[in-house]
């Protein structure tokens, strides 16, 4: 499968990455090589096989419905680039 520069732009947007023109071009080149690698899969006969998400095939464990956490806002919010009044601040979200 081939990749156009608009594909690259679309993927970069989905991933919220900004690529300069130079980076885009390089990304497209790399992409083509990587796709050539992963396209080798297409030759494999996988008819009738169930996809395998995990090597271990056990069941999801369950947790008791108990509140185990206490308020750690002050400690955790020290890690934030921007906060005020207990809130994380981001540039204005326009709905």
């Amino acid at each position: 499968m081939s990749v156009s520069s608009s594909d690259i732009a679309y993927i970069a947007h989905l991933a919220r990455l900004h690529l300069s023109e130079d980076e885009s071009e390089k990304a497209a080149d790399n992409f083509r090589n990587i796709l050539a690698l992963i396209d080798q899969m297409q030759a494999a006969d996988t008819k009738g096989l169930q996809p395998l998400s995990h090597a271990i095939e056990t069941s999801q464990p369950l947790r008791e419905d108990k509140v185990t956490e206490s308020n750690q806002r002050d400690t955790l919010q020290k890690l934030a680039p921007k906060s005020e009044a207990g809130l994380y601040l981001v540039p204005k979200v326009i709905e």
Partner: protein
Amino acid sequence: MTWETVIGLEVHVQLATASKLFSGSSTRFGAEPNTQANIYDLAMPGTLPVLNREALRMAIKFGLAIDAEIAMTSVFDRKNYFYPDLPKGYQTSQLDFPTVGKGSLTVTLEDGSSKTIGITRAHMEEDAGKSLHEDFHGQTGIDLNRAGTPLLEIVSEPEIRSADEAVAYLKKLHSLVRYLGISDADMSKGNMRCDANVSIRQAGDTEFGTRTEIKNINSFRFVEKAIHVEVERQIDILEDGGRIVQETRLYDSDRNETRSMRSKEVANDYRYFPEPDLLPITIDEAYIEAVRATLPELPDAKRERFMSEYKLSEYDALVLAAERETADFYEAVVAECGDAKLSANWVSVDLQAYLNQEEIDIDDSPVSPVQLGGLIKKIIDGTLSSKTAKTAFALMLAGEGDADTVINNNDLAQNSDMEANTNIVVSVLKNHPDQVEQYKSGNTKVISFFVGQVMKETKGKANPQQVNEILKDELSK
């Protein structure tokens, strides 16, 4: 041209667990911002989810209540998108293998007819946080207390044909999840939210028209209004020869209109894939049966029972069984006083009128079921007339005490003293020989005159039923 409305509803119900879907943070409503967001909820590097046992049990309980297929294996997926109130950059949800599959819900419509609406699926997912748009120097504040709260998303088939049906469906869902004890379903707190997919087509068409999705409608009334205005908007467009654009729209209750949410329209490519931090959930028949054994009597079954056990009319049974709290209250009143019919009237008419007027829940009623039953007993034993009973009830609601107390303190008891009442009757008859003559010559209606006279003598306190009996006795002598 006749248009047919086609509606499918996606209802998010917040599951009433103590802790979040994947972390041990509290789900309590109304806490200070970000005080209930732990390292997992904040998506700190290296943190991992573990599924809340109770959320799974609640989802399955719901599935059993709508007679749905329960998946023996269900899978969580990541739904990827960037938004500041979504800390991980993906929402953990279920796409291809939801826990609850196809089921249905039967609703009763205004005209008394019933309709069964298919439910496509119900799946567990995490709620997002909240964006606070008030001004922080031109920035938005993010509160992640709600992030990770468990939701059950219940998706209906597009089988709803009017706003009224939509509201009936929602009310039934509301009643059901509350019966099951799996959600408070309080729309004002946002723990029941509704998105409506609305389209129209010409009557008789088999293809669906292009639909729009109206997001986040937060009351039953708004559901009705939002659907109405959206249907009208779509009819106007089509009748003008235009085309409906498939999009997400927001209902603005102030203006009573829907408007396009263009900002959310950009590239909805959610890139779902199985959540690798969680394993498939597998359950067995024994587990399902154990959950089934905890199912309470559901509204429909309760209504049937009220009709057969208490001989209630279908209408009374429907009203009393609609909410679990009302039904429980009613049955407690019956247990106290033994009269199902009188209890039904007092709960669904007198008490309900008061609760509506004061806008309080039946659980917060100032008169307990035992107290109301006590009041009804006083009617049955003749201490109160239907009129004095209402006076007594008003006093009880005002907090003046139980039936005995308000009767004593306010001198409300009827006089049922046989001897005293007989004496009064005898003296009344003695003083009105003409009327006695009239009665004896066949004018039995005059008896009400005597009753009136006795009541006048006793200031209304004589037991009218008893007075009637004494009068008949004396007059036949």
